[in-house]
């Protein structure tokens, strides 16, 4: 009966986007709009003695100035875990790049000039930059006071509090008895990995326009989390959330960088002070100083039997959260739960730590910690196989969880035949024992594989949807999933169209406006087509059924069917409006997950995100240059809604992975980020596209529920780093334990091995 699911439907935003007509936040101009600019600290850690904005305020054209001494808001802190981040620095600055003051002026040039007239006196404090710095026994504390927030988990998982420490969040997962497990092992191997901090770099930086009219805030923002922004702004000004309205234009990408407050808080405060609309658009440099992916250190110790059976694993994960907590506590929780990987390991203990430092605050990033743990786990898995002198693919096949097998007791069973996908991948690349023999030639060429399973869809997410059939026969979908480029507005409309047996073009996706759109947690965790998809499906079925019962009354028969956007009755087709007679139908749907204390995280995993990858690489021994010649991935999306856009998600993810593997790294010197721009921070470009890039999108037969699509935004990224590093080992015998893999390090390692 499928009319649109699984078929190519042109993106709803296609014509607008290729003609330049699509409106992003930065394209909106309001009458009387002021321009806000932000002054940022150049010191990583300092007490603020004095902030003087008198000269700036005296400038003609400057309308408002915001500092800690001019902060007309009820509660200056925000944050998605604990509220630890102020709108402007109060007593201290906690990182170089922190907002210390802001001005709103008639134009950008005046605002920029005004910033130069602000003087600030600091008292410099010792700073901690790296994970090691922050964990040092005598390390200065980034935050003297830690706000305690007990986390509620389920069986086997608990949070542990630390006093007088930069560790603000520590989660531990235990099952079986890890010490017993190690005692029963024939071999124990321990390895340590590091992934550098990265920048999400959506092409559009954080930007917001806020119009406070004396009563209400109206916010146009490039955010992935309209309702979170609403609640945070309401919290800052202690007003009812209905007085804050968030409207979402098109977004120029997100990748996690727009999951929490960006430019909204400063823009809202300046608008509150000036009673005029204020636009705050962060520059590329400012985006680098607003959020990043946490740098991660992971130590994994595994006990194995002589026959290759894994019996125990002890892992430690350290995440550099930067100056504020943001969502890194959740990333720690997720990383903690992922540390045993997709393998059958009876005895596990994992500790994950979120650690403050005087660096740019970390937060959500495509994969939400999945990439860092995957790199460590899948490198380590390969290392185990090599030490046991067994084939890495065979070693994985021996230990991989079966489809239907529990990942952890009571949680959603593994929903994909991962072993079969690994066999398919290994066949497709022609994997042979020859592929893992070190080569003596100057140019070495070989393959590497990795196989990743990650809990997908977020935790405890809530989604609501409304489907209206208007009296004029148009179908309107109202839901809060933000179109950040992933194609969700089209895919979700296809879900509606399927229920009405109509072309997707008959469905209109309503603009998101928190005043009218039903609540949704956020657009993140690849939950769009899964969690929101279910709410949309329910709303569409509800609306369809109501419409059909009205039609049944109008036509005096229950023998009705829907065909091609029409109601068919006794061989005659009616437009919807012909049977609705001026009535409007409203269908509603929701998707929520109930708490289950038996599950470690406390809520069921919505679905398993499956990402396998094989890299074929070439290394030049003379230069250390690594080229990815071929990359092949297999991901499971359950059921494809829109094939072209699905492929776009996977391939985009792979290039993200290539960037993290070979190129991207935020570099600090003297406590300051020294490469906050695209000259010094190298993003993947056309030249980094492998000669052959194949993304195989698998549709696993369902094992739970009737609605099959799974999220697809993050799976492509997962396997890249480990597959590449495993390939490097296979042809050189050199194990790269730190990301990104820099060619000078490869070169040094190859030449020291020779010596």
């Amino acid at each position: 009966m499928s009319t649109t699911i699984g078929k190519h439907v042109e993106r709803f935003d296609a014509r607008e986007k290729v003609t330049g007509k699509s409106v992003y936040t930065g394209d909106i101009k309001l009458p009387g709009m002021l321009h806000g600019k932000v002054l940022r600290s150049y010191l990583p850690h300092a007490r603020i003695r004095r902030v003087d904005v008198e000269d700036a305020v005296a400038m003609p054209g400057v309308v408002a100035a915001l500092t800690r001494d001019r902060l007309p808001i009820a509660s200056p802190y925000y944050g998605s875990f604990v509220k630890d981040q102020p709108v402007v620095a109060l007593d201290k600055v906690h990182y170089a790049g922190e907002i210390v003051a802001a001005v709103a002026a008639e134009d950008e040039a005046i605002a920029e000039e005004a910033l130069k007239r602000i003087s600030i006196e600091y008292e410099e404090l010792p700073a901690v930059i790296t994970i090691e710095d922050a964990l040092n026994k005598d390390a200065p504390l980034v935050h003297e006071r830690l706000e305690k927030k007990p986390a509620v988990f389920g069986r086997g998982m608990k949070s542990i509090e630390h006093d007088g420490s930069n560790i603000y969040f520590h989660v531990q997962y235990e099952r079986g008895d890890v010490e017993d497990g190690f005692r029963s092992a024939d071999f124990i191997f321990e390895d340590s990995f590091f992934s550098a901090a990265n920048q999400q770099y959506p092409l559009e930086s954080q930007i917001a326009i806020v119009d406070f009219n004396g009563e209400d805030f109206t916010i146009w923002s490039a955010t992935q989390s309209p309702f979170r922004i609403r609640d945070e702004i309401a919290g800052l000004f202690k007003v009812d959330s209905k007085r804050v309205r968030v409207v979402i234009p098109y977004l120029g990408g997100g990748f996690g960088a727009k999951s929490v407050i960006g430019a909204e808080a400063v823009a809202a405060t300046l608008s509150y002070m000036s009673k005029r609309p204020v636009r705050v658009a962060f520059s590329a440099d400012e985006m680098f100083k607003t959020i990043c992916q946490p740098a991660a250190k992971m130590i994994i110790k595994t006990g194995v039997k002589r026959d290759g059976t894994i019996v125990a694993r002890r892992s430690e994960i350290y995440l550099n959260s930067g100056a504020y907590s943001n969502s890194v506590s959740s990333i720690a929780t997720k990383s903690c739960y992922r540390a045993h990987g997709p393998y059958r390991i009876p005895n596990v203990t994992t500790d994950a730590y979120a650690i403050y430092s005087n660096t740019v605050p970390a937060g959500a990033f495509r994969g939400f910690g999945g990439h860092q743990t995957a790199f460590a786990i899948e490198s380590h898995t390969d290392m185990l196989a090599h030490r046991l002198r067994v084939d890495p693919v065979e070693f994985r096949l021996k230990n991989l969880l079966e489809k239907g097998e529990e990942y952890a007791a009571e949680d959603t069973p593994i929903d994909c035949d991962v072993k079969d996908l690994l066999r398919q991948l290994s066949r497709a690349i022609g994997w042979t024992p020859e592929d893992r023999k070190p080569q003596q030639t100057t140019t070495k060429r070989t393959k590497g594989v990795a196989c990743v399973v990650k809990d997908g869809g977020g935790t405890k997410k809530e989604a609501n949807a409304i489907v209206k059939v208007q009296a004029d026969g148009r179908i309107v979908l109202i839901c809060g999933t933000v179109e950040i480029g992933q194609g969700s507005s089209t895919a979700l409309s296809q879900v509606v169209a399927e229920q009405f047996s109509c072309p997707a073009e008959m469905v209109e996706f309503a603009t998101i406006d928190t005043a009218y759109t039903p609540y949704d947690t956020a657009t993140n965790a690849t939950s769009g087509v899964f969690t929101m998809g279910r709410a949309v499906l329910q709303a569409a079925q509800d609306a369809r059924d109501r419409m059909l019962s009205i039609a049944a009354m109008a036509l005096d028969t229950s023998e009705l069917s829907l065909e091609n956007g029409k109601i068919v009755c006794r061989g005659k087709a009616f437009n919807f409006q012909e049977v609705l007679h001026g009535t409007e139908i409203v269908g509603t749907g929701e998707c929520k997950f109930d708490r289950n204390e038996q599950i470690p995280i406390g809520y069921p995993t919505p679905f398993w995100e499956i990402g396998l990858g094989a890299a074929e690489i070439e290394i030049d021994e003379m230069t250390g240059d690594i080229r990815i010649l071929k990359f092949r991935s297999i991901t499971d999306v359950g059921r494809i809604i829109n094939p072209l856009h699905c492929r776009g998600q996977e391939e985009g993810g792979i290039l993200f992975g290539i960037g993290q593997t070979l190129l991207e790294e935020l570099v600090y010197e003297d406590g300051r980020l020294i490469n906050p721009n695209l000259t010094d921070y190298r993003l993947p470009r056309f030249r980094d596209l492998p000669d052959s890039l194949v993304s195989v999108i698998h549709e696993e037969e369902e094992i739970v529920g009737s609605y099959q699509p799974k999220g697809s935004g993050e799976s492509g990224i997962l396997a890249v780093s480990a597959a590449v590093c495993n390939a490097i080992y296979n042809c050189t015998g050199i194990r790269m334990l730190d990301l990104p893999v820099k060619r000078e390090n490869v070169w040094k390692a190859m030449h020291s091995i020779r010596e």
Partner: protein
Amino acid sequence: MDAVVIPIHFRLNGENRQAEVRTHELLIDFIRDRLDLTGTKRSCDIEICGACTVILDGKAVSSCSIFAYELDGKELTTIEGLAQGDKLHPLQEAFIERGGFQCGFCTSGMILLAKTLLDQKPNPTRKEIQHYMDANICRCTGYQMILESIMLAAEKMTGKPA
């Protein structure tokens, strides 16, 4: 900071125009704020990403890094000038058919850069496209689908498979 104002004459998407620009006014600001053509996007601001690419006398340039007065006597094409009424340019059609964009923020620049490629070389090879298009950054698509879009556009425009 009184600015010197310079009168300029130029062609904008096929039409004769004149304006007065300040000496330090950047082309991107002139296009977005004064001409109200917001299809041209600002991202890195330092001529690296190509989101602000426009065509000036047949050459792709980063409008974030040149002055508005440099327009004088030249022909400017922005993304708004590519379609003929409702009829999309073959590149625009191809980007839709082959998934050459997602968030759309790099798209104007990508399409205009690709146009300058196809204007010079109607049937480029995959390698030639990859080399030429390396000037612009896309964070969403992974590039391959842009590459395929350009090959399809070349095919549409020349009638020959690329």
